[in-house]
């Protein structure tokens, strides 16, 4: 079911991830490691993946979970996926 997809914007992505992880936006720095610094376990990482899939209208295979480690990496992953599609 196609959703209205969002253009990729770093600050919007930052806010989205902060909401998913339930932390202040300030804690989601460009390079903060989700797992080591923001307490994101594999289930929450999957939640991030799934939520971003729906928001940006792109499929992100679960094998991409290890690329969802920081804001910068997540942005890069999405940029690559959206470019390819």
């Amino acid at each position, binding site marked *: 079911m196609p959703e209205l997809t969002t253009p990729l914007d770093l600050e919007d992505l930052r806010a989205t991830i902060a909401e998913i992880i339930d932390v202040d936006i300030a804690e989601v720095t460009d390079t903060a490691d989700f797992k080591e610094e923001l307490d994101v*376990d*594999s*289930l929450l990482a*999957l939640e991030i993946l*799934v939520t971003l899939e729906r928001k940006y209208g792109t499929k992100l295979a*679960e094998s991409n979970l290890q690329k969802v480690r920081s804001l910068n990496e997540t942005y890069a992953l999405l940029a690559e996926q959206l470019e390819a599609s």
Partner: protein
Amino acid sequence: MGTTDPGVHVTGLGAVSCLGAGTGAFWTGLTSTAPRPAPVAGLTERVPDVLAYQVPEGAADTGDPYGRATRLALHAARQAVADAGLSDDEIAGMAVVLGTAGGESGERDGVTTPPAGWAPVFRLASEVGGELGAFGTNINVSNACAASGYALSVAMDLIDCGEADTVLVGGAEALGWAPLAGFSRLGANDPELCRPFDADRRGTVFGEGAAMLVVRSARAAAGRPSYGRLSGGGWSCDAHHLTAPDPAGDQPVRAAREALREAASGPEDIGCVVPHGTGTAHNDVLETRVLREVLGDRLERVPLFSLKAFIGHTAGAAAAFAVVAAALMARHGRIPANIAPRRQDPECPVWLPREPVPLRRRRILLNAYAFGGSNVSLVFEGGTR
């Protein structure tokens, strides 16, 4: 060893699963078939990786006006009660303890016009007790994949403290959208079959069914045929992570050791292990580590019987099915051949005999580990013929 020994005696068995209805069909299935799961009508169309080991059409039709889980439970319950040869008075006095993960939650799937009255989801023990006319203590246990293990343990406690002398106990599970779709979302479904300890395993596959037993105090069981005793049980809780087991495995080890201690048994007394063995990546390698810790260097010499490969993951009923299988193995004196993994995981060097092997020691260790971290181990000790 006769039924005057202390402890909790198993005097009746009942089972309904993808292998059919009745313990005869169950044993025949374990000794001669390799079932495969099938798509779930109404669900697989929407969630393609969902399969399940399903009770054959019509096998458990009882004409009872209840939801599917209760109907399965009743079928197995009547088998167990008949097998135990209980009189009407004994049935009227018996306690009923039933474990289930989902209860009748599946009855709400795809139903847009709900009934007018409130139908509590977890009412299986109540309905079984009501239908059979049993006035004893009636308890519904909902500890996910360990529910019937806890139910069996509660039944043992009721007998030990004198609250009951006869307990109809076990587990029942019908299919439901939430667990099957939920596991798919979590990437925990194997899209082919349930293949515990296989190097290529990708998750579990659910199975529906019910397994029920009649357990009795030594005094109540005196003079009646008995399959053996439940001689030990141990509880623990990972308290680690909501969905993933603690890789350290301390708590499942503790539950197993407690069960062995209560059964006055050591690793050298165990003739077989019926593992939790679900086919998920985490569980099977963790359980191997647990068994290594508990059995030590005997690990490679104690045969496992990987029951879920035959009937799928029956969730709340799994532990009860394991005890039924153990009782039948003890009765027949042998462990059926395992369904061999195509390629056994080298990180799981457990012994899964590909041929039937004799049950050389009468004590069987059973494990059940719940989603959420509740663990239970039981020791079943087969009776002398």
